[in-house]
């Protein structure tokens, strides 16, 4: 429980007297504080600086070093104080955590030093409170990036045993790693440029024969251009084949965008080689030549900016789609209107609605070629409305695209952000688990029957064993919840059990809202629902016995799932319950205490001596069933 709340537990327990006159059942016995001692000050000597605090303050978080018996290892007999050879400055924030329940990250502190201190004192960093958590995560991320950069720099020193294939791939991906790679990089870039220029110049009319019209250079110097083209294509082919050979996953490489561009760039040439100069297919052949322009996209391997542009367009697909859609709508509307407006005019160019599309597009994008103009007054009015609205429709999505681009360009740590979000989700999940721990801890200890065995067995080893598993605070809290159960004659049950066992019976909608967060899928499945059905009859029967103080039967009521023999009302068989290791429930072991810090501890000890008095209900402690049961009503336990 949080710091202050633990102090209010006595109050909550005292207030439970308000339930007593209302209850019809006897109350369970309270756990006594066997080593009841007055709260004392303890001295923590951290590298010479003495901190003092109450012992109870440290006991609030029994999962940490200072809260558990682990600190006895640091106890100095002569000076009667606990000595830690650590940094006293960092210790301040750690001690404040015990006092206030909030862990803060001091900004002047180095991140790795702080992490080490937390690890030493057994505190998980996820509970850093929200005011300091962002800062902590940022610093941590910077640190890991720096470490990774260092690693990569070291990686560039070529590891000795790389195969030829791996070397080639590395050379292709990072051209600056070796001189050969750099040469290759520039050569391919040069040839891409040459190829593109060739394609362009091919169509320029150069020189005219006196008896012929201007012919493009391509047709004049056919062989020269053909040789150029062949050379380029050969280089590209070789490059593609080499990449294909070097790629670690050929299938993935072939599916990647860059390789598709490569293929599309060189394919027309080969198709052209195969096809003869047939009149029929020459039309198609010419079309194919268009694809040669795709060679320009090969530059994107050489330019980071181009890649980002492509990535932006891909990521803004929805905005672009919206732009397109709204434009289409507007075009159709205005084209229709203009057509009907200009229908009256005699020599109107607006011959049909699709013909008006051209006018609308030209006007909306404010191009205004002037090849189609409205002549009627109505047409002119609607035409001006069209151009005004065009401005708006186009101006709207553009800033979004622009900001997207700049964001991606400046923050190319997008992948890291996603990683950080995953970590944030993991953090929240961990905190939820630890907060949910209080209610599940109660349910868990119910199954152990710890509430009873604390009192009735009474032998010393029992108590010592028990102290390891639950703190006094916890047992008192559980006793309180147990009293509430007795008052209302209902019991707390795991959410999952509840849903599975009672889906058949009509579920009453209970007024109180308990939002439930289940973090792990339960393995309970059919096992539990089968057993709970069996148990319902048996448990109903045992309810009638409940007014006697009987240890066995009290614990019998608690076991809903995970027992292998069906309950029947005979007392003897109630003792048989415990071999719960066969239950399918366990996904995670470990007792989660009510502290925020939930470090899974091994399940409570299995071998408990059977005293002669009424035997304890389960000699074997069950592994804890569903971790992710419920709720936390309100913040910070």
């Amino acid at each position: 429980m949080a710091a202050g709340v633990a102090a209010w537990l006595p109050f909550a327990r005292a207030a439970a007297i308000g339930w007593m006159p209302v209850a019809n059942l006897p109350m369970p016995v309270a756990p006594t504080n066997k080593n009841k001692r007055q709260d004392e000050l303890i001295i923590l000597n951290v590298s010479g600086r003495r901190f003092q605090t109450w012992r109870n303050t440290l006991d609030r978080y029994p999962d940490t070093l200072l809260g558990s018996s682990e600190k006895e290892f640091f106890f100095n007999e002569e000076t009667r104080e606990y000595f830690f050879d650590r940094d006293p400055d960092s210790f301040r924030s750690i001690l404040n955590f015990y006092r206030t329940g909030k862990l803060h990250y001091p900004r002047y502190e180095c991140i790795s030093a702080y992490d080490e201190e937390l690890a030493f004192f057994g505190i998980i960093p996820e509970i850093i409170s929200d005011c300091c958590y962002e800062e902590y995560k940022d610093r941590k991320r910077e640190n890991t990036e720096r470490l990774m950069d260092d690693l990569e720099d070291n990686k560039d020193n070529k590891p000795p045993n790389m195969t030829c294939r791996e070397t080639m791939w590395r050379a292709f991906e990072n051209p600056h790693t070796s001189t050969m790679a750099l040469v290759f990089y520039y050569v391919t870039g040069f040839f891409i440029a040459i190829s593109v220029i060739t394609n362009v110049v091919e169509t320029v009319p150069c020189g005219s024969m006196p008896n012929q019209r201007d012919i493009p250079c391509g047709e004049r110097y056919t062989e020269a251009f053909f040789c150029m083209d062949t050379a380029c294509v050969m280089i590209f082919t070789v490059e593609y084949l080499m990449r294909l050979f070097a790629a670690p996953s050929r299938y993935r490489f072939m599916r990647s965008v860059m390789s598709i561009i490569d293929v599309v760039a060189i394919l027309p040439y080969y198709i052209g080689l195969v096809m003869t100069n047939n009149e029929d297919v020459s039309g198609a052949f010419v079309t194919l030549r268009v694809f040669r322009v795709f060679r320009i996209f090969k530059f994107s391997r050489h330019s980071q900016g181009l890649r980002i542009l492509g990535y932006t367009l891909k990521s803004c697909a929805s905005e672009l789609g919206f732009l397109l859609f709204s434009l289409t709508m507007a075009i159709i509307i205005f084209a229709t209107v203009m057509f009907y407006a200009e229908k009256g005019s005699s020599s109107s160019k607006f011959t049909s609605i699709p013909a008006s599309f051209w006018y609308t597009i030209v006007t909306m994008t404010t191009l205004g070629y002037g090849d189609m103009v409205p002549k009627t007054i109505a047409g002119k009015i609607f035409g001006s409305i069209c151009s005004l609205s065009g401005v708006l429709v186009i101006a709207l999505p553009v800033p979004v695209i622009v900001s997207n681009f700049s964001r991606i360009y400046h923050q190319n740590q997008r992948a890291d952000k996603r990683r950080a979000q995953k970590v944030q989700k993991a953090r929240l999940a961990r905190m939820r688990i630890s907060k949910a721990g209080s209610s599940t801890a109660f349910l868990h200890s119910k199954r152990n029957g710890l509430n009873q065995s604390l009192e009735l067995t009474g032998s010393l080893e029992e108590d010592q064993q028990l102290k390891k598993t639950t703190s006094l605070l916890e047992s008192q809290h559980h006793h309180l919840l147990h009293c509430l159960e007795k008052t209302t004659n209902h019991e707390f049950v795991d959410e999952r059990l509840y849903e599975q066992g009672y889906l058949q019976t009509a579920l009453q909608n209970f007024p109180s809202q308990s939002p439930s967060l289940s973090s792990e899928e339960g393995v309970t499945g059919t096992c539990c629902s089968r057993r709970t059905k069996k148990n319902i009859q048996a448990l109903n029967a045992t309810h009638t016995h409940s007014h006697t103080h009987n240890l066995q039967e009290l614990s019998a009521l608690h076991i809903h799932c995970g027992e292998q023999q069906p309950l029947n009302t005979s007392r003897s068989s109630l003792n048989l319950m415990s071999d719960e290791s066969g239950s399918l429930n366990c996904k995670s072991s470990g007792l989660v205490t009510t502290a925020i810090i939930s470090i899974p501890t091994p399940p409570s000890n299995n071998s408990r001596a059977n005293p002669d008095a009424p035997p304890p209900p389960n000699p074997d402690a069950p592994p804890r069933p569903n971790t992710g049961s419920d709720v936390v009503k309100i913040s910070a336990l």
Partner: protein
Amino acid sequence: MLSHPIPSCIPYTHPLPDPFPTPSLFFSLLSPSSSLFFLSFSPIDSSDSDLELSTVRHQPEGLDQLQAQTKFTKKELQSLYRGFKNECPSGLVDEETFKTIYSQFFPQGDATTYAHFLFNAFDLDRNGSIRFEDFVIGLSVLLRGSVTEKLNWAFNLYDINKDGYITKEEMLLIMKSIYDMMGRYTYPSVRDEAPSEHVEKFFQKMDRNRDGVVTIEEFIDTCQKDENIMNSMQLFENVI
């Protein structure tokens, strides 16, 4: 006299915090950094109430006086106060804080209604906040008082309007709030009639003259004859 040049107005990119949303909405359409506008719209009135709470503070009476009024020792009072002050540095617990604290002990259900009744039972002078004295006097009755005093306290809790009679409606409210604390996931699941049935049982037991209300005498009488209740009253003797 030298007059300092008035600094130029806030630059255009950061318009004045505009309480009227309509013009800012218009501007925001044209500017890419539109999020600024919505953030600049700041509510002004909440700060007053914040000021109010933070200046109210309460210091308890002296330790000796409290020791005279209650049955706690000095050390117990000290440790109680430390816990109290930790959670409520201002020295006063208002109802919301009280509900929050109490709800943390019952994570599965909704403890706020019962906490409300508890708050009224502790807040003796009905001024909306519990001071340390109220807290400690209440605790003294609960933990160190005689059985009659405890029963009196419980009666006071159930009697919501403090008129000396517990009616069925009052009891039903209390019962519902107790069942609320159980939450949804119970075995057997709480039916809607469960609180009223419980109230009926209670009244059958307590209401001797069947007049529909339970008076303090009937209550104490019946409780003293009931063994279970007597035992449970002693349950929390050693809480502190």
